[in-house]
């Protein structure tokens, strides 16, 4: 991104836009957006964070799940303008510069993904669960993830991945 120039097209004049400032993965980011722009599209196209995916058009699949102020939200069912002033975590914010999040490690360790398309949303929904309940049962996990569809894994390994991550997080918490 550069402030050196911004191309003006016939479509960009006269369309009212709003300035939004969203803290994405800890970093303040601002953009001028049309109110109708979905948050998922701002993240993907505006901010080049393509880890958040879109998989349906009826708010069912959860592939677009991000954390808004720590709670899971379907970013395809939020307008970008609604995220103004809020914190958003995408899958790109899970790992630090040097370390994967235990959830990411767990998904790899326990084969919790195949095509990878549902995985970002699934992991963030799992993080929201573990943030509230560090020792979930299998039922707790299946319930918490029932807003995220997966076509590949049959969910059993996803549950194992989350259990793996929960144990690691409990152990390192001491």
């Amino acid at each position: 991104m550069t402030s050196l120039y911004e191309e003006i097209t016939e479509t960009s004049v006269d369309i009212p836009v709003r300035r939004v400032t969203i803290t994405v993965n800890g970093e303040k980011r601002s953009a001028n957006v049309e109110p109708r722009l979905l948050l998922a599209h701002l993240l993907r196209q505006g901010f080049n964070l393509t880890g958040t995916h879109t998989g349906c058009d009826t708010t069912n699949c959860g592939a677009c799940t991000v954390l808004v102020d720590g709670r899971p939200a379907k970013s395809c069912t939020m307008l970008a303008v609604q995220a103004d002033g809020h914190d958003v975590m995408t899958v790109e914010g899970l790992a630090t510069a040097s370390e994967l999040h235990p959830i990411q490690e767990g998904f790899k360790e326990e084969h919790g993904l195949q095509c990878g398309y549902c995985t970002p949303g699934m992991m963030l929904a799992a993080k929201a669960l573990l943030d509230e309940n560090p020792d979930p049962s299998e039922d707790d996990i299946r319930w918490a993830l029932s807003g995220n569809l997966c076509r590949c894994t049959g969910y059993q390994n996803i549950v194992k991945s989350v259990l793996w991550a929960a144990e690691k997080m409990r152990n390192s918490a001491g």
Partner: protein
Amino acid sequence: MSLDEIKIGGMGASRRRVEDNRFIRGRGNYVDDVVLPGMLHMEILRSPVAHARIRSIDVSKAWEIPGVRLVLTGDMMATRNLAWMPTLSYDTQAVLATDKVRFQGQEVAAVIADDPYIAKDACEAIVVDYETLPVIVNPDQAKASGAPLIRDDKENQPDNKVFDWEVGDRPATEKAFEEADVVSEIELHYPRSHPSPLEPCGSIADFDRSTGKLTVYMTTQAPHIIRAAVALVAELPEHMIRIISPDLGGGFGNKVPVYPGYVISILASILTERPVKWIEDKTGNLISTGFGRDVYLKGQMAVRKDGKILGVRMHTISDHGAFFADAQPSKFKIGLMHSAFACYDIPAAHLTAEGYYTNKAPGGVAYRCSFRVTEAMFFQERMIQAAADDLGMDQAEFRKVNLVRDDDFPHRTPFGFLTDSGQYGKCLDVALEAIGYEQFLKDQEEARKNGRYIGIGISTMTEPLGAGNSREYDILGIKMFDSAELRVHMTGKAILRTGAKTQGQGHETTWAQIVAHELGIPADDVVVEEGDTDTAPFGMGTYASRSTPVAGAAVAMVSRKIRAKSRKIAAHLLEVSEEDIEWELGRFYVRSSPDRGVTIQECAMAAYSNMPDGMEPGLENTAYYDPPNLTWPFAAYVTTVEVDPETGVWDVLRMVAVDDCGVRINPMIVEGQIMGGLTEAYAMASMQFITFDAEGNCVGSNYMDYLLPTAWETPGFELHEVVTPCPHHPIGAKGIGECATVGGPAAFVNAVMNAVGHLGVRNIDMPLLPDRVHAAIATRSDISGAPPVRTDAP
């Protein structure tokens, strides 16, 4: 000292996946993630009606919207001969409708604009005047006399029939029925279902006028087939077409056919001289792309009173939608439906098949089905259950009497396939033991006395995977071999490319394991690439569980070619003749003096720096593999369920799966495939279906109506393995990707039917939704056909 194969990530290692490294970071590269400079966006306008003449299309308002670059209609496509395109089944399919629309959701116009929001605005501004025509939504209507002709665009198409087909031995089968003590009959409908990978289809077409090269990023499981198809349809030279299939968010067969959107985006790029991205929405995917099933299956089984099956008759009626667009071997109109009953020793069988056009989306063979084998095996196991019940014989016993015995291989199936290996009885025994079969039957009797309905269902099957040998198998005349190209660098690292295309099966991980097995190069030292037609050797792609059987075999074969050359290099380095060289994993050594040896890495270095006289430098090769036969994995799936008779709701108590897919390259990945397949089986049995009302309106074109089970409904699975290596496959492996989807549904349905069978209910067609199960229980009668839609009658 020989290497530990598991430690280097060879075969049998549950090696953690290489592709995960990017997916867990959100760094996958799916088609919609790709951004090209100057890229435009395309949206498609779809028909709201199922069958109608197009009187006019007014696109003037669309052109007026700022940011719109191009509006395409069928007439414009027609001037470039692109309004119609050939399908993979030798039919034609409309790219953009010209004369008529023939199914709800059919592509009518396309807008290319600066962003997809504007493109959508412009689509909404297009006005189409439709003159509706009578609608056909099932084969009965299609074949009725006086039925409207759907394909009036075709010459020599007087009616709505697509094909008649037949296989087997009619006289021998008739005789078997004459000799039968019991004849059982069953009639089933396998409802229309859709692969619905989470990622919908899409493409980015980029035609570079300065070089004449067309590059297309595309959600395709078979990039080389696409390149060939584009060369034919767009009449561009094949060497100037590059198809790149990057990461795919699932395929399941949905991403094999050529869709109009791809073709339109290509023309749009040529006309606008910009890259054009088309990403369909989920509704577009569900309403217009390759679906699976929608077949009526009827048949009889002739049985002797001691339980021996004498013969089987099958008749299938398939609903192909408006265009015959199935991707399947060209010789077989109803796919490999005639693989039915392959695991049983049945002397005679006969199958007749009819196919029809209807006003619905085109397809039939595109859902993790191994080319209609899901339908075949579902019919098989439902027929088996009915016959055992009619005979008064225990379900497990009936199967054991008839399953092909271990010493009966090679075995000619009643429809003429040749199966080569298996331990069918053992797999069934393992499953029955695991589920506690005998005890369950006792529990069932007790439960019935207390008004509780529990049931157990068995499904056993072998299926043909790995299409296929060039004598019998081709798509559009192209033979169904596959390929692998392996280049070993001087430091012993390697790059492998194949003609397959992974969509979640983990090829980047598993193919390297085969190389590690054959060459002792650690799997981590082998990078695997697929999907770019400029670099990958020609292959027919990944579907119908063909990758391990065919491409995997090619990987083994090319590795062996590398090893053969390395052996010569080793002899040269060790200064002995080749006959004195022995091989252990990763190392050649002198037979008479075993501690004198060279590693494969040392051979690689020598290939660039110390070649034997007269030897071509380098260490790389290509293998094209024409499989001698299909592979035949076997599975025994057993499920127990409880049905609530008051509501018709049923729950899975336990699901036991015993799979024999020969040698397992990566047990973890194999189990992942099985569990994914069992979930789809559960989905189809319980809730997942597409249906149509009388006007051809599609019910199931979004995730509110097309139900996929969540983690909450999906049962847990208990997996077991038996290993019977494939005798002809270089590493003894068989396919596995679709086994559970193929064999699983019957286990669930058989279990529910077993739970309520004592009420006189013989069949409930899928999906076994609560209302249908309840209706069967309440009326003590069968429930047939797809769920009704909005009858407004009580």
